[in-house]
Each structure stands twice: as C-alpha cells, then as structure tokens.
C-alpha cells in the first residue's frame, strides 16, 4: 500500500459514460484481483475509490463510469500523472474448480483481472454481465478469452432482457460478484453456493483510519476499505 504519482499511459472512452484509465506502475506494486485504489481528481478534496480492473507487470488499469462531479472532472481532464494510493483492501479468494462471475454496471470492472487469474489457475469460468443498455457494454469481448460470457441488459437492447441473475448455477461453483447493493443482496440470497462479494461505500481515507466506509454485515461493523471490499458471501445472507 503506497501513495504515489503514476504516469498516464491511456485515458479514453470505451463505452457510453465509461472510461478506461491505464497508468504505468512500478513492478514492486503487486495488486490482487478485487483490490482497489484511491484516485486523486484535481479540484476535488477527497480521492475517489476505483477498483483495479486489470494489471500487468508494469501497468494498472481502471474502468470508471461518469457518475457525479469527480468522475466527470476526471473524464474531461488529460493529466500526465495521477496521484493514487494502492493497492487497497481485500482480494478475491481464487481457490475453486468452477467459478461463476456475476457483475453489474461498474462492478464489472474488477472482473477482468479476476477472470484472467482464475483462468490461469485452470478454473472453469462462467461470466454473467449486467448493463443498463447496449451502448454501455464494456469488457464483454475481452472476458470471452477466459470463459463463457452471458450478457443482460435492463432494456433488452443486448443479450437477455432483465437483471443479471442467472436462472441456476452449478451447485459446486463458487460465486464472485460485484455490483450495486441490491444486486449483491439478491445474489447472496438467491443462490446456496459459497462465494465472494465485493461492495461499495463512500470513503474518505481508503486505508482504515476514518471509519467512514463502515457497513453492518452479519459478523458486525466492517470497514469496506480494509476488511473489504471483498467479503465472504455469508456476510450478506439474511
């Protein structure tokens, strides 16, 4: 975990309201799938938490959607360097033979590194991706390299119409999910499988000192930035 200024290699729009940001990173910084970074946006007081979507030996990739003022500012700017704190938080546990990835909206971002790593471990990967509409689709093509990919859109403009909740799941498959709170709760309670869910909360520090990101889970009050963002599925079951 360190605060550092990284060179921008690429910063471009990849889908409606969706941008890819690639930074050059020193090799000693080694993120794991599911971890995130606090990203500085010039003109904004607090950094923005963004999942590490993917990484190589010397790059780290973020995919963000323009939601409010900060992401809008970032999307309109072309900085040469960006201050980031990373890698932060817990990562996905990769030990499984069969993996079912269920992600919605910007929750799809961290699926890239996750699917790749699982695939490299020889795990069978089924990916289910939910978008609002066709023009917001991203990462779907790339993920086909690592397993089957099923697309859902709320308005039916691409793939299956409706929310991203597969009818049934191979009973010994491990679920990996990231997305809005309602989706995570649905996933947690619809399927009996064990699994790992990545969640969101507003953050000030991103590394455990402010207690701003705390949410109530089954086992108690947890810091999303430090105890999470990846938690065991049971934590969300009711």
């Amino acid at each position, binding site marked *: *975990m360190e*605060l550092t200024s990284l060179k921008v290699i690429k910063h471009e729009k990849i889908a409606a309201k969706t941008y890819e940001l690639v930074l050059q990173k020193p090799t000693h910084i080694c993120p794991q799938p599911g971890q995130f970074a606090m990203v500085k946006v010039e003109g*904004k*007081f*607090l*950094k923005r938490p963004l999942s590490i979507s993917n990484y190589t030996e010397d790059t780290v990739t973020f995919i963000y959607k323009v939601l409010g003022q900060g992401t809008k500012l970032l999307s309109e700017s072309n900085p040469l360097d960006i201050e980031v*704190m990373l890698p932060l938080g817990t990562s996905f546990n990769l030990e499984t033979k069969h993996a079912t990835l269920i992600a919605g909206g910007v929750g799809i971002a961290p699926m890239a590194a996750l699917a790749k790593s699982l695939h490299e471990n020889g795990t069978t990967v089924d990916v289910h991706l939910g978008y609002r509409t066709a023009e917001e689709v991203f990462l779907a093509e790339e993920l086909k390299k690592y397993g089957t990919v099923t697309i859902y859109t709320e308005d039916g403009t691409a793939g299956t119409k409706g929310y991203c909740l597969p009818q049934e799941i191979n009973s010994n498959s491990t679920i990996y999910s990231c997305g809005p709170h309602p989706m995570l709760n649905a996933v947690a309670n619809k399927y009996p499988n064990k699994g790992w869910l990545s969640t969101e*909360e*507003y*953050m*000030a*520090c*991103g*590394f*455990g*000192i*402010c*207690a*701003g*990101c*705390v*949410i*109530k889970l089954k086992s*108690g*009050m947890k810091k999303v930035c*430090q105890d999470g963002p990846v938690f065991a599925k049971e934590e969300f079951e009711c």
Partner: protein
Amino acid sequence: MLMNEKLQLIEENLHRLNVKLGDIELPNPVMPASGCCAFGHELNNFYPINKLGAIMIKSTTDVARDGNPNHRIYETSNGMLNSIGLQNPGVDVVIDEHITWLDSIGANTIVNLAGSDTESYVNVARELEARAKDKVTAIELNVSCPNVKHGGIQFGSDPQTLKNLVNEITKVTTIPVFVKLSPNVTSIKEMAMAVDETDAYGITMINTLVGMAIDYRTGKPIIANKIAGYSGPAIKPVALKQIYEVRQVTNKPIIGMGGIESATDIIEFLSVGSDAIAIGTANFNNPTICIDVLVDLLAIMDEMGIDHIDEFKGRAHV
C-alpha cells in the same frame, strides 16, 4: 526525499521542535487528531508513529459502540462532513489491544474520552486510571462531538455543565486531562474560562463545525445522521479565530487543530496561541502528512532564521 531521510532530518532537529506542555514533554508539536488515525496501526505502516509528538486515538466509550449507519462521510468544497457516531470497541478492548500496543512501541498516547452522560464518561476515566495510567500521556475529553444523537454537544455548550463534567473526571484520575472544545457555541471564551477554573490540564480545539449536505436530485440529506461534523481546510479560519480568543483568557496549554494541511498552517496556529497542533482530515489525503509537515517546517525555519518553534508562539497577541 525518502521516509527514513525525513525521519533522520527530524531526529537531528528535535532540539528545535521539542514541546513542553506544562510538565509533559513531546519530541515535536505534531500529532494526528482523534478519529483521524484510528488507533495508530494503519499509520504505523507508513512511518513509525512513535516519532510523532503524540497520537490522539479514536474516541473511547465505556462500552463498545457500532456508530451510525451509512453514508457516514461526504465531501464538501475543501473539507468534508462526517457522522461516524463514536464507533469504538469500548475501553477494555482499547486498553488491551491498542493502548498496550502503543505503549509497547513507545508512542505518546492521548486517549480521547467520550460518553453520553457523566457516568459513562467517568467509567472510562476510572478504567484508564486503574489499568493504563502509566501507558497514557493524557486524556482528551470529547465534550463536543457534534455527530452523536442526544449526546456530546450539550456538555461543551454550557459553561456550568462543562465545568461539572470536567470536575467529575479530574476527581477520578491522575492522568492529565485536556478538554476538547466545541466551536459551535456563542462564546468560546466563556467555555475556555469555565475550563480554566477546573483542574483540567489543558485545552484542545477545535472539534468539527456542524454542517449538512443535500442531494439536489432527491432533496434529501446525504449523511444518514442528517447532520454531520465539518472538518478540513474550510474550517481553518474559524479555528484560528477561536484559539486566538481562548489564548486571551487562559494560560493552560492549547493543542490547536482545524484544517491544518501545511507547515505554514502550523506556524499560524502557533502564532495565535497553540502550544502544539493536531492534524485530522489531512491524514486521509496523505498518510504521511504528519511527518511531511515537520520536514517542511524545518525548511521554513531555516529560511526565516528561526532556531526553535517557540519563537512562533503567540506572535498574534504582541
């Protein structure tokens, strides 16, 4: 500059930075503020926190508290709102897991003490006196945490209530007690005078202002608790003004805080009457801020030909 170079530079210049708060000696004037450094473990991953002037740990109550629901924090222009709600594991766990560790690494620990009635405050003080008095540099009495429903604020907003609380605490402990003033009062001088008449050892100030953020789309408050504490650079002018006024009515040591982000901020806080300073919100944007500002402070002292930080103290009053 690498962290170990920074630490060495500070080490070599401690004779220019050391602080005396009455009989309490600190190696330098900088400490992270309560609620902005948890119990020190995280910052200790960035630098050895025993190099700090001291560390003000998260508000501690007699029994564990879950705190408030989320959202708990939100950004403002040049500051932030928070309504954490005194989440903490309770004094026993704080002593066993945190204070003991802080003592073992040689950190100067200031325990921030909170409660919702006099008794709950006193319980924590008793516990600290009984089990940790040698491990604690001082107690910081949080009489002003503005973001806990039915609690906190009233103690710090009425001189007599404040005085009574402080007296109850100083009765049960030999640990030096600093009273943390709330800025959200009509007359900060009245509050300081009330504290001045007690056996309190000193004053820390300011706690957060009180503010609110609204989602313009829904028209609803963004923070679950609706009302929240306001901190960061935006409150600095208020902090400087109130410390300036309080210094006019008491000779007790003052640990100043409120929006400090830089070495020049520190000099300003010393100028209005602070004897040491604390940094809160700025730790979130830069985990090593407490070390970085000391390095910058030394550079400015060299440039200005200042031997010791004491030369900055109280200049606004002469």
